[in-house]
């Protein structure tokens, strides 16, 4: 009987090309149940409406989508399942939807859909999806600023521990909000110029690193960022860890920063000063920035080498082969 059960739980099933074991199904069912149970404990904090219910469904869909991205990036079934499992019980995801009813998922899922489509070679549709997500994100954040104008009449940060937490968020608010956007534009343009000059092709490998970098960079310098501005980076950091286990501390630290921002916004206090979290974010920004630099440099060199070999511009060796 024991052997039967042992064999049963690890026996591989194949349904229409999809291979799975009983353990996989068990984990999927149990973790989904745990995720729902987790949500049920905090769901009463804010009114539960149709938007919240749809958001919870979308959160599960995001977990599946991210599992698919990890599978497509790493080819590992285990990592893919783990991604799904972790995301279903991810604290900031649950707090954002079920607890706080902010429901960032409506636009965040579009970002990750874009990333997935980009990875599958459908760059136009991927770009459109990310763009649509951006439009919704800007609209949502703007509405939030307006709503919080009473609580934070003069502050460059609306809860996210970013750069302004270090230099002071209450000075020159109505000037720095515009200056910050120009600086951000300058930084992004510099990045684009660097990529274009070095003829770096944003491969599937590099795309996730760049995605995470931007997800940390933009809320770090953009003004009036709400406490939930790190949602996208939270999820992206997890995918990054699945791809690069040596960067285990990035999702760990980002989640702590992000949840502390939630705690500060909801409870009005955290045990550590918010500036500590700003420094942590800066540290992560540098680490991921270095990964972009090294990844880009490598890709750039590969591109140049392939050009020298007579390959067409911008194509990587594996594609040429």
């Amino acid at each position: 009987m024991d052997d039967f059960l042992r064999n049963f739980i690890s026996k591989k099933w194949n349904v229409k090309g999809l291979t799975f074991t009983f353990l996989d199904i068990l984990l999927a069912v149990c973790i989904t149940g745990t995720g729902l149970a987790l949500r049920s404990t905090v769901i009463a904090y804010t009114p539960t409406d149709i938007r919240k219910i749809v958001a919870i469904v979308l959160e599960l869909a995001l977990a599946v989508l991210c599992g698919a991205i990890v599978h497509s990036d790493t080819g590992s079934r285990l990592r893919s399942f783990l991604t799904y499992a972790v995301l279903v019980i991810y604290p900031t995801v649950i707090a954002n939807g079920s607890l706080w009813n902010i429901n960032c998922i409506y636009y965040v899922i579009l970002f990750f859909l874009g990333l997935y489509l980009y990875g599958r070679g459908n760059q136009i549709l991927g770009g459109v999806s990310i763009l649509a997500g951006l439009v919704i994100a800007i609209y949502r954040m703007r509405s939030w600023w307006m709503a919080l104008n009473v609580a934070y009449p003069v502050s460059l940060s609306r809860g996210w521990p970013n750069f302004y937490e270090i230099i002071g968020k209450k000075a020159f608010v109505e000037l720095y909000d515009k200056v910050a956007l120009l600086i951000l534009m300058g930084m992004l343009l510099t990045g684009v110029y660097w990529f274009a000059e070095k003829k770096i092709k944003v491969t599937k490998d590099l795309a996730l690193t760049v995605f995470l970098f931007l997800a940390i960079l933009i809320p770090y310098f953009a003004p009036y960022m709400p406490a939930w501005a790190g949602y996208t980076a939270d999820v992206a950091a997890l995918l990054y860890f699945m791809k690069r286990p040596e960067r285990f501390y990035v999702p760990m630290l980002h989640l702590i920063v992000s949840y502390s921002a939630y705690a500060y916004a909801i409870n009005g206090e955290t045990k550590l000063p918010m500036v500590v979290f700003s420094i942590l974010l800066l540290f992560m920004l540098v680490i991921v920035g270095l990964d972009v630099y090294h990844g880009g440099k490598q890709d750039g060199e590969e591109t140049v080498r392939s050009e020298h070999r007579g390959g067409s511009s911008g194509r990587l060796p594996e594609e040429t082969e």
Partner: protein
Amino acid sequence: MNSFLKKRGLDRMDLCYLAVMTLIGLGIRVILRVVITDDWLMYWDPWISDIKEMGFSYLATDRYDYTPTFIYILWIISKLPINPMTGYKGLHCILDFVAAAILGKTIYKVTGSKRKGILSYGLFLIVPTIWANSALWAQCDIIFMTFLLLCFYYLFEDRPCLAMFFYGMAFVFKLQSLFIFPFLVILWVNKKVDLKHFLWIPVLYFLSIVPAWIAGRPLMELINIYMAQGAQDVWSLSIKWPNIYQIIGNQFFLLEYASAGTWLILGILMIILFAMAQKRYRITNEFIVQMALFFAILTPWFLPHMHERYGCVADILAIIYAMMNVKKFYFPLVQILVSFNSYMAYLSHLGSDEPTIYYGVWAFVELGLLVLVGLDIWHYMRNPENQLPMDPGIVKKKEAA
């Protein structure tokens, strides 16, 4: 158009990047031009008003404690048919762009990379301490920094006479140019600069005060203008610059530590110069920047009465250092963060809140940078490949001794 670009080794993408970054830089400065700071209200505005009223004879008075060269610039601004603050900030903002172009050219020269040169131009324009200095605070540090950049450019071109001319010009505008003076002594020891080139410093200074002397201000007063400047703002050992006094306490032994701190840094500089002059070294461009950056951080770390803006030389040198050696990318990142935090400490916290991170923490961060760049110099000097044989004459003298 194409031939114009080709002649300069540029393509359309470079031009596009340069144009957009220029517009972004301009946009930032246009937004900030409206800020009126205490320095404007207490110094530049009344000075310009007095110049308008008194004309050339203003130079004879002791109402200004900056060098006369700066007053000549204010005199020009007073003659412009525009709002004095717009004229003042506008001039310094133009210099921001000039300095960015010089930096870009310098980086291109030392790295041979067109991309790095162009990126330096673009990034310089969005560096917070640069736009905050000229467009927000209405300060004039960009003048002497532009001359310092020219000094470095010509040092890299191996034209020491011209380099020292521009160093002299920087000195004519600001005493802070002396922070990096010791590195010029090391260059002299290593035959990169001659003694006669140093003459530019007193000559240019003397020439710059002649008009004010003719106007009627006593010569000794003009010569001692920097001394008089140093005697002001003595109410704290550190005026919000994160240095040693932010660690040991900046409100005690005000008189005693003011003198002691000056002697201490002089002693430290002597010891360092003594140690560095023991051998001859291969002087590379990177070594020049390393040394200059080291002294630009070291001197204000020990000197008393340092202001919030006194990290500006180190800010620029840190950018050059990182562009020459990408592994040192964190130098400008940290240095500019420290520096900008000090700016904001003055601009936003004066008389109200304390900064989020206490100055003492930033002082330790600055010390960390000092140690790191010091170690870079140490490793460079320890490497036998970088050591040159001594002059036979000196060796003989040493042996005889």
